[in-house]
């Protein structure tokens, strides 16, 4: 199992290294964004998934890293001790220091209080930043230039891609190793039972602050990579949107698994890149997906993969293919129905449509969508999504029945009821 895991990891790394050879410029840019989002999500999940502290203000540390890097790039000019490839170190140090201060406050409380305090710290920075134009450049933000170093010009984004990739892989490795250190094990203890940790004689406040600072340190690296990539930073980076993004991505990916958040963030930012031209409602889909994951699949995509792998090992593909096919069909129908409904409503309530109905004389002009035009007052238009959704739900119920039957027929397995998707997430945090 472990060897297979290593092999898959190696293949992924090779694919990531080879990717720029075949990708277009804009895809490479998307790739950089995906890598940065993955690192940020993993740093966030160290705190949230492993240590059970739910942060709503992680953009503060991402932003701090980004701004510090922009300042360092300006001040150093790529010369001296910090040539461009080492700039993320500035982000790391800034993230660590800011995290130590913020974490000391935030970890005074646990559970939902902690979540609210991190939210308020993030908003504090967001409210303060535009007034401190010396540090954050006011409304316009700051911009800088990547300087050449070690014979590399960093003028095209392929070199930036490799720089980002190297840092992200390094940081993911360090994060993985951190979980093996005593402090990493203490982080797990903080999630599971804070009281017991206290009885064991650990200083819970100090330990929480340290874990918090480690998480923000890697967030700072992600912010620094972002600053190197776009050569600028704006105070909008402190907005809650970014904190919400990393939270949604991590949970969709599966926050308790080490690579789950990275997968979730990479997938979500890739989809965001693909559909950003097609729809204005991407955030709505993302929110819907998040709520569905929280309701039915609390371990996220990684948990789903885990459950499928386990079921395959128990029953074999022959017994399960029917359920898989049904699940795929149901998902396709539900996605089609939801997308159709949302896009139809979006167009119906858009300003363009209102303008069109005023000048055209026709109060309800047809809506062009998916290569056809739909009359908003026709029953058929609304029947289609309803039918799609109903059929999807019906298929889903059938698929679930097949799945349960297949599992029940298989030999009763040892310990893990992972297929029900149950299990504790960060419940241990509230005290």
């Amino acid at each position, binding site marked *: 199992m472990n060897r297979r895991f290593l092999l898959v990891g190696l293949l992924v790394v090779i694919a990531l290294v080879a990717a720029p050879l075949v990708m277009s410029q804009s895809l490479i840019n998307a790739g950089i964004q995906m890598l940065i989002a993955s690192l940020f999500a993993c740093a966030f999940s160290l705190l949230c998934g492993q240590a*059970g502290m*739910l942060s*709503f203000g992680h953009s503060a540390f991402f932003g701090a890293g980004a701004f510090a890097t922009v300042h360092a790039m300006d001040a150093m000019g790529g010369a001296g001790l910090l040539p461009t490839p080492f700039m993320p170190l500035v982000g790391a140090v800034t993230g660590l220091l800011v995290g130590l201060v913020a974490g000391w*406050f935030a970890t*005074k*409380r646990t*559970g*939902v*209080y902690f*979540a*609210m*305090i991190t*939210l*308020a*710290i993030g*908003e*504090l920075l967001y*409210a*303060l930043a535009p*007034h*401190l134009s*010396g*540090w954050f450049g006011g409304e316009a933000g700051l911009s800088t230039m990547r300087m050449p170093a070690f014979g590399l010009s960093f003028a095209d984004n392929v070199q930036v891609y490799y720089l980002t990739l190297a840092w992200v892989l390094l940081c993911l490795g360090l994060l993985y190793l951190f979980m093996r250190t005593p402090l990493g094990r203490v982080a797990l203890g903080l999630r599971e039972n804070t009281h017991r940790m206290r009885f064991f004689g650990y200083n819970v406040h100090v330990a929480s602050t340290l874990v918090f600072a480690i998480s923000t340190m890697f967030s700072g690296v992600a912010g620094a990579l972002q600053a190197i990539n776009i050569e600028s930073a704006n105070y909008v980076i402190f907005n*809650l949107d970014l904190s*919400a993004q990393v*939270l*949604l991505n991590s*949970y969709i990916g599966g926050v308790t698994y080490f690579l789950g958040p990275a997968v979730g963030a990479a997938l979500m930012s890739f989809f965001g890149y693909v559909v950003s031209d097609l729809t204005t*409602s991407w*955030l*709505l889909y*993302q*929110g*819907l997906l*998040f*709520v569905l994951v*929280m*309701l039915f699949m*609390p371990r996220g995509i990684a948990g789903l993969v885990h459950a499928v792998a386990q079921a395959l090992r128990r029953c074999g593909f022959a017994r399960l293919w029917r359920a898989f096919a049904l699940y795929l069909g149901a998902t396709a129908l539900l996605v089609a129905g939801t997308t159709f409904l*949302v896009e139809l*409503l*979006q167009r119906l*309530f*858009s*300003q363009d449509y209102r303008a069109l109905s005023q000048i055209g004389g026709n109060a309800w002009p047809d809506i062009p969508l998916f290569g056809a035009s739909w009359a908003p007052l026709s029953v058929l238009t609304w029947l289609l999504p309803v039918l799609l959704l109903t059929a999807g739900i019906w298929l889903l119920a059938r698929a679930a029945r097949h799945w349960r039957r297949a599992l029940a027929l298989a030999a009763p397995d040892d310990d893990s009821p992972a297929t029900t998707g*149950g299990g*504790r*997430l*960060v*419940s*241990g*945090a*509230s*005290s």
Partner: protein
Amino acid sequence: MDYFIVSLLNGLIYGLLLFMVSAGLTLVFGMMGILNFAHASFYMLGAYAAYALQPVIGFWWAVVVATVLVGGVGVVTERYFLRPVHKYGHAHELLLTFGLSFIIAELVKLFFGNYPVNYRVPQALSFSAFHVGPSAYPFYRLLIGLVAIAMFVLIYLLLTRTRVGIIVRAAIRRPAMAGALGHNVPVVFMAVFGVGAALAGLAGAIAGAFYTTSPNMAIELAVMMFVVVVIGGLGSLEGALLASLIIGLSTSFSVGVDVSLAQVLAYVGMGDWARGIGGLLTLKLSSLSGTIPYALMLLVLLIRPYGLMGAKE
């Protein structure tokens, strides 16, 4: 003096509005341990519902219907979203309501556009109540405050003087025992959640007409609400009232004060030093007014981490 009176009134009324929303949040938390991130979204839903209904059925009916509608949304949220995930713990519930607030904000953008809508105080209500010096004080502001006070009195009487109130309080303190005595505790929870949502909706319907009604109003208020409950102590109604008033007053007074730390330090002969440092020290208090609540919160966390009125952990 005029400035003082106007700021005092504005601060009091903003504080009361904050309290009107955070009261429901605190009640629900005290009862179920759920921190409802979507609570401020209910506030926004109330404003948008009243805005959409106002041209059809008039302002007052719109307020009433919006309140009931949002209460219904709250009941559905509790029954079909929160109850199934209760077994995963409170953090999971918080995340779920966070997702819901995200969806509600996006839906509002989808239906009403990503910009403030033109929800205004009706003509019949936009007159001045009295004059403070040269400036007129709008009656509608007083109305917001009055509604908040009336609501507080009603809730207080309901909880302390009626049979329903006794059952609700019993379900808060000892849910298992109240259930054993034959009361349907899940229904009580659902009802309290619904009433909390309805109150937020009412606040939104009334206050949305005066303040801006935009898709961002929920998140702005949510953050402020959380600051209120951290300062006041979660689960404590009195704490929420006190913290709301403190925040309302401090924000409204600081807007008009053009003093910076450097000017204060100048009295002890350190003005030049402070101006040399720049940054925070030379910022005027008025431009910092948005950050004062957060600073207050951090201060409270330092001195009394469990909140002004909260129970010690």
